[in-house]
Structure formats: C-alpha cells, structure tokens
C-alpha cells in the first residue's frame, strides 16, 4: 500500500484534493466520450465523427443512422458498460481484501461466470439449438457461477486469504478447474452453443444486439447505484477488524455483501462479452493513482477508465485485424501482463 501511505498524509487537506479528484473525473469522462465517438466512427467504412455526433443527437442521414444505431453503437455500448462494471468490481475487491493484486480475473470470478453461462446454454437449449427460456436469464446463470467461484476461493483458502499472493494462487487453481470444465462443455453442445460460447475463450464484443445491451444496462446501473450507496462504508473497510468494529460496522457481513456485489457486477458485465482479463486489475489501480482515496470519485473514475480500456482495446483489434474478429481481451492481456508483473515485483516486501 505504498500509494496509500503517502495519500493518507494529504488527508487533512481534503478540500482541494477532492476538487482535484472531481476535475480528473471530468477529464476522464471527456476522454471516454471521445473514445466512444471514435469507436462508432471506425469500422468497415469510416464515418466522420461529426456525422456520428449528429446521429447520436437525433438527426443525420438515414444511411448513417442505420450504421450507427444498428451496427456500431451496440458494440461500443456493451464495451463501455462491461469494461466499466468489471473495473468497479475490481475496485471493490481490491478495497475490501486490502490486496492491490486482486481482480475478478485472478479470483476465479471470470471463469466461474463463464462456466455458469456455458451450463446455462447447454441445459436450456433444445434439439434445434434454440434457447427454451428467455435470454434474460443468462446473467443470472453467470452470477451464480461467479458467486460460487469466489466463494470456493475464499472457503478453500481459509485463513490463508489474508496473504495477497496465496489468495491469488487459490484463485488460479479454481479458475483452472472451471476453465477445463468450460472447455469440455463447449465441445458437448452443437455448433450454435459453441460459437455463442466462443466469446468466452478470450472476451470479445462483436455480434452484440440491442436486447443484450439493454439487459446489461438494466442490471449494471442499479448495481452501480448500490455501490455508490454503500461507498460511505467502503472507506473504513480497509481498516483492520478491531477499528472497524469500533465504528459499528459488521465487517464480515459487509465484506460478504461487497464480494457479492463485485461478483454480480462481473457476471453481468461478462455474460455477453466474455472473460476480458486485466481491466479489473488495471483500471482501479489507475483510478486510485489519479484520484486518491476518496471513494465516490474513485468508483466513477474506475468505471470510466474500464470503459475507456475496453472500448479502446476493441478499437485496436478492429483497426489492426479487420475484417477478422480478434477478441478484444487479447489487447487487454498484452497490456495487462507486464503491468501485473510490475506490480508483483514491486510488492516483493509483502511476501506470500
């Protein structure tokens, strides 16, 4: 927590710092808007950004409207929502485990959610490969998988959970088992299921439609509001047990609630996009680096940074590999790996 210690010193000068934090959030928001417009503008044909803005504001030519609203915006919208939600989940996990290496990816949440979706697709498809229950239930399946996975990680690690490194190792082991089960189940199903499930291999935001966007929107927004509502308690949650009890917060219950929230955010985020690695690790880190310890700006900054990262990653794969659909998760893995290694080396002091 080297970043934490020097920020703690500046805590008594909260006012200017908080103003600065909100300023940074505003800059990030502006950046996100630019990336979103670029994300819509770039594709098999380039649309001038002013045309994109015109369509989004409700005017523009009919042809442009079709491209923007039907083809490109769903993809960008899902990237924004999912990237943001994963980032907030990562923020919650890092905060409540006091472990700056924690993220949905390494705690088994992503692979658990993937397994949940695969089982859902396998169980609820009929012979002609159509789903027999509404697709709205898919996030529920992802959520159950995610919650079970994170619960398994914490139950198995027991009192070793306090060690950052050991916790991650348990996460890796649980994730390996979940991933192998996912792989087997993917081969069981007919081809429809396999291609549906293929997004899960690496995370990808192509082939998204408005139904899926609206499902994600309807679940991410209430969850985010819930996060903001409990943010008052998140600050003391990184104190130790005794001090927390001193201010009247039931820490174990609160922690479980936060884990659940993080799992829920991850589940809805990835249930249509797939396992996008490292966004949940990097975005909250940068958010804390930029805005400091104030919780509300940090949550919002995490969301914005996650949205920027995933939209940007998708932009990069489209620019580099078009027309082949390379999963956006590849870019986040390429960028995220060195970053994670850097964190790992830097924190050698707090050895596992």
């Amino acid at each position, binding site marked *: 927590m080297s970043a934490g210690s020097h920020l703690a010193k500046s805590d008594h000068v909260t006012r200017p710092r908080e103003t600065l934090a909100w300023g940074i959030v505003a800059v990030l928001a502006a950046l996100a808007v630019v990336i979103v417009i670029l994300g819509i503008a770039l594709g098999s044909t380039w649309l001038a950004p002013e045309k994109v803005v015109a369509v989004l504001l409700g005017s523009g030519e009919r042809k442009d409207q079709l491209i923007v609203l039907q083809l490109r915006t769903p993809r960008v919208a899902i990237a924004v929502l999912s990237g943001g939600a994963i980032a907030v989940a990562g923020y919650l996990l890092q905060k409540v485990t006091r472990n700056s290496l924690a993220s949905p990816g390494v705690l088994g949440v992503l692979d658990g959610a993937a397994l949940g979706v695969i089982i859902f697709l396998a169980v609820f498809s009929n012979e002609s490969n159509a789903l027999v229950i509404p697709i709205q239930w898919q996030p529920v399946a992802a959520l159950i998988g995610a919650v079970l996975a994170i619960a398994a990680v914490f139950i*198995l*690690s*027991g009192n*070793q959970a306090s060690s950052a*490194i*050991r916790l*991650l*190792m*348990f996460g*890796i*082991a*649980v994730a*390996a*088992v979940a*991933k*192998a*089960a996912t*792989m*087997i189940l*993917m*081969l*069981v199903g007919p081809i429809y299921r*396999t*291609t549906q499930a*293929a997004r899960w*291999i*690496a995370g990808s935001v192509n082939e998204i439609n408005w139904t899926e966007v609206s499902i994600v929107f309807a679940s991410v927004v209430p969850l985010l509001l819930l996060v903001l509502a409990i943010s008052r308690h998140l600050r003391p949650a990184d104190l130790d047990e005794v001090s927390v009890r001193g201010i009247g917060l039931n820490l174990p219950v609160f922690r479980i609630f936060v884990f659940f929230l993080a799992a829920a955010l991850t589940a809805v985020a990835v249930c249509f996009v797939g396992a996008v*690695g490292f966004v949940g690790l990097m975005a909250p880190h940068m958010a804390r680096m930029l805005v400091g310890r104030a919780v509300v700006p940090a949550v919002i900054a995490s969301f914005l940074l996650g949205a920027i990262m995933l939209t940007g990653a998708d932009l990069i794969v489209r620019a580099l*590999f078009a027309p*082949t*659909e*390379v*999963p956006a*998760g*590849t870019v986040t*893995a*390429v960028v995220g*790996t060195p970053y*994670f*290694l850097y964190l*790992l*080396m830097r924190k*050698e002091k707090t*050895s*596992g």
Partner: protein
Amino acid sequence: MSSFATAGTWKSARDWRLYAGLAAALCVALLSSLLFGYRIYTPADLWQAATAFDGSEAHIVIRDHRLPRAIIAPICGAALGVAGVIMQTLARNRIASPDTLGVNAGASLAVVAASALLGVDSIAGLSLASATGALLTSLLVFAIASTAGGLSPLRIVLVGVTIAGLFHALVEVVLTVREAELDQLLFWLSGAFVDRPLVLATGGSLFVAAGLLMAVFLVRPLDIMQTDDATARTLGAPLGLVRAGCIVCVSLLTGAAVAMAGPVAFVGLVVPHAARRLVGLNHGAQIAAAALCGALYATVADVIARFVIYPLEAPVGAVTAVVGGVLLIVLLRRRAA
C-alpha cells in the same frame, strides 16, 4: 515431505518391485488405450489387426487411430513428468511445473507461430521451434524471477502463470487470424493425443530421448541441488552449469511433448508428486518413477477423455487440468509451497 525422505538409501528390492508394478500397469493402460473408445474391441480383434490385417473398419481404427495415440500419449507423459521433477528441484518449489512456469505456453506459441506465420511444416522443424520456445520462456521466467534477489516460490509461479496467460492470448490471435476452426483451436489449446500422425512420435521421441539422456547425467547434481546454494557449491556442484543443463533438458522434454500433443495441462505438476511419494527424494529413482508414472497417467487420462462426454471426445488436457487444479488446491492448503 520429510516422512518420505529416504534419499540415498537405495532399497533396491522394493524399488524394483515398484517399477515392475508401474510397468505392468502401463501395459494394461496401453492395452485399454487400444481397445476402448467410441467402439470397444476385443483382444482378439487386436491380435488379428496385428497379425492378419484385412482392411476392415476395426483394423483400420486400431492401426490408424488407436495405435498412434497409444504411442504418443506415454511418450508425452513421460517427458512432461521428468521435466516436472527437474523443474521442481531447480526452482526449489513444489508447485513448479512446465505449466505453472509458462514453459508449455511458450512452446505452444512457438509451434503455432512457426507453422502459421513462417510456414514450417516438417516434424523436426516444429519440434525445434517448440523446444526453442520452451527454452526462451524458461530463460525469461527465471530471469524475471531472479531479479530483486530471487522471488518467493509462489511469486515465481504467479509470474509463470501470467506469462502463460499472455501466450495463450497470442496463440488465439494467430489461430483466429489464420481462421482455424473453433473446435480445432479448443483442442490444440488444451492438448490432445487424438489424430496426431505417427511421424510426430518418431520426430518427437528423438528430442525426448536426448532430454532423458541429459536427465540421467543430471541425477547427481540434482541430488546436490536439493540443498541450498552454498552447500551445493561446497559439495562441488558447478551451479551455473547445472542450472543451464536443467533448463536445456526441460526445454527439450517440454518442447517435444508440446510439439506432439499441444500443452497437456498439469501433467508436469501432478507426476513429480506421485513419483516422490513412491520412491522418495533420490533423483535417480524419482526420474525413473516419474517417467513411468507420467506415461501411465497420460495414457489413462487419454482413455478417460474418450468417455467423459461420450460419444464425443474431450481434450485430454481438460481432464488433466481438473486433476491438476485440485492437486494444486490440496498442495496450497497443506502449505506445501
């Protein structure tokens, strides 16, 4: 592990019985690998296919489908098992293995890159690419691990797993760009013995033989390496040379296995633990036992993979990944690492 510390006491009678038992079990496994699958054959079918081949479906399946995998699976298993033993001693880390240190992933990236991007299609070329990828990855992981004066065992594994994740992502990019079929991609990424031509075995087994030969020469130095660096130096082990030898040996073995079957997960993690349980810490015995156990384990897993989602076939790597993941949890809970 102290209760199994029988290092140096060579209980030959018991050991020979053990090896004979393992060899017998391996024979049974190989036989079931030839007989069991989508169709189940009788030993009589097998005998006729061997002596009086008549081109019937049963005979063709046995010769062209069952036989190659019954040969490739044990070779890969033995190679990965021995590589695991050497890695665990080299890293002084009970959860080290070609998978957890990213060497498997490095080898598969090299194979995919060489075949898809450079157009290499000879068996020797692919094996060489695979071994080179394994070598470069081990050097990279150990270089990262040795910075900051050596990292803790868990941290080295985290470095390895992270790098493996990155390489898997890159393999996916190469394969998607080359428009590989999805199920091919899944099978390749998780490792499988199915539908591998027999020539792969002849090419790969040369590398495996070279690696096993090196392993035999490394037996004494590896015994010494189990102590700490200072003691090992006092006992006259040229540490740098031994380490370099170990890394080359592991790269040959892992590279050959990956070139033959893709990255079959966690065989190199599970097998050394079984071998140590059976024969203790003496490396001569450990390597012999790991070779037999690895061959047995891979063959049995390959047979099981045919029945997990019958009538379809699961990638054998998914089966071994479940076993390996569970073992990893057990080891972590015991604080064995």
